[in-house]
């Protein structure tokens, strides 16, 4: 069986959304689209227990606030990957508000939160942040590829 799911990848500017997708995906459109209309579409097929899941990834251009992103981009999404930068506090201090802003019109959306750039911070800090930040997250590194594949596959599994 083959199914398709829309996954929105959002988060502050420079947290590494596009790099994470680049790590995970090989098929992709030109990067120019991202700067033109603020979104770039990528696709990755993942096998989940015999079901082929086509993840259509909407890479949303980084903004300071989710409220500035066209709402229509989030409508109809089956999954959300919210990415923040473990080395920059300003990208996770308003995590709850940002995720609420995105998911308020779409309560059934499956959300995964990723703390990216784990290669830049100390393991002790990651553990501290896991107790400080009210939402559970998975640490990833687009640079080393650490946990990237697992993060996308877990979301694919949750969506079916």
């Amino acid at each position, binding site marked *: 069986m083959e199914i*398709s799911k*829309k996954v929105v990848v959002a988060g502050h500017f420079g947290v590494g959304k596009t790099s994470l997708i680049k790590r995970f995906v090989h*098929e*992709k459109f030109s990067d120019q689209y991202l700067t033109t209309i603020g979104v770039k*579409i990528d696709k990755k097929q993942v096998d989940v227990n015999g079901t082929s899941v086509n993840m*259509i990834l*909407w890479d949303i251009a980084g903004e300071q606030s989710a409220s500035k992103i066209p709402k229509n*981009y989030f409508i*109809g999404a089956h999954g959300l990957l919210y990415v923040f930068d473990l080395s920059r506090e300003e990208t996770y201090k308003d995590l709850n508000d940002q995720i609420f802003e995105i998911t308020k019109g779409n309560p059934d959306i499956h959300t995964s939160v990723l703390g990216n750039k784990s290669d830049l911070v100390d393991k002790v800090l990651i553990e501290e942040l896991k107790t400080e930040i009210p939402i559970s997250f998975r640490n990833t590194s687009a640079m080393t590829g650490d946990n990237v594949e697992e993060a996308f596959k877990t979301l694919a599994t949750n969506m079916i």
Partner: protein
Amino acid sequence: MSSKGGLSALKDLLFEEEKKKYTELNDKLKEVNVRIDDSLNNRTVPDKEIDQIVGKMVQVMPEKLGPTITETLKVQIRESKDEVVQALFPIIGQMIKKYIAQEIAVLSEKIDRQIESLFSLENLALRLKATFTGQSYGELLIQKASEAQIQEIFIIEEHSGILMASYSRNKTLDQDMIAGMLTAIKSFVKDSFEGKNQDLETITYDAFSVYVQSFNKFYVAVALSGVITAEFKQKLDDAILKFIKDTTAKLTDLDEKKLSRKIEHHFQKI
């Protein structure tokens, strides 16, 4: 004294001064050569470092001098418009000539194909149309050759942008990603212009256009090439509406492949 010895003595007498100057000059030259060799042997910067410096300069130069050169060029172009036009005119003229020649060749090929099937029913109908409408047969033939052609059809879920079915004359890009991108563009336009009940209808790019017809939960996007006349648009609208009317109930039952075959079969008639 022999004549040879006499001549030599005479030469010595006549050119004594010059010979002295020549010897001095030769000595100075030797001295300069020795100094050059010494400075080359005793220099403090080795060849490798010089290569590195030159390499670095080559790298840095575009960044450092680029803006200045660009600005200089801009000023030069602004101040010498006539010269620029004079220089570019032959090149652009050639390009336009080449493009027109190519387009005419394409059109002529199409007309040739039409003429080859001169005795077909289609051409007979064209001749009849020419007789009754007063339009020339050639004109109708050209119209026919450049008429719109469906390249791709997509049925896409309205909000998620998930592809439900598609037909493509020559699959070039991933259909799922095109569906997503079209939906993103549609969403962007809708959001930017706050048209609650309005929707994107056409995207035009060069001689290529994407015609969009929105329904409640999905939309149909048709990629077209050629000249889109009002008559063709009407025909396309009717075909889309008929297809949706005939298939809506089965849209969720049919899998993507079956639905895609249905699309191909249905729209071939246009």
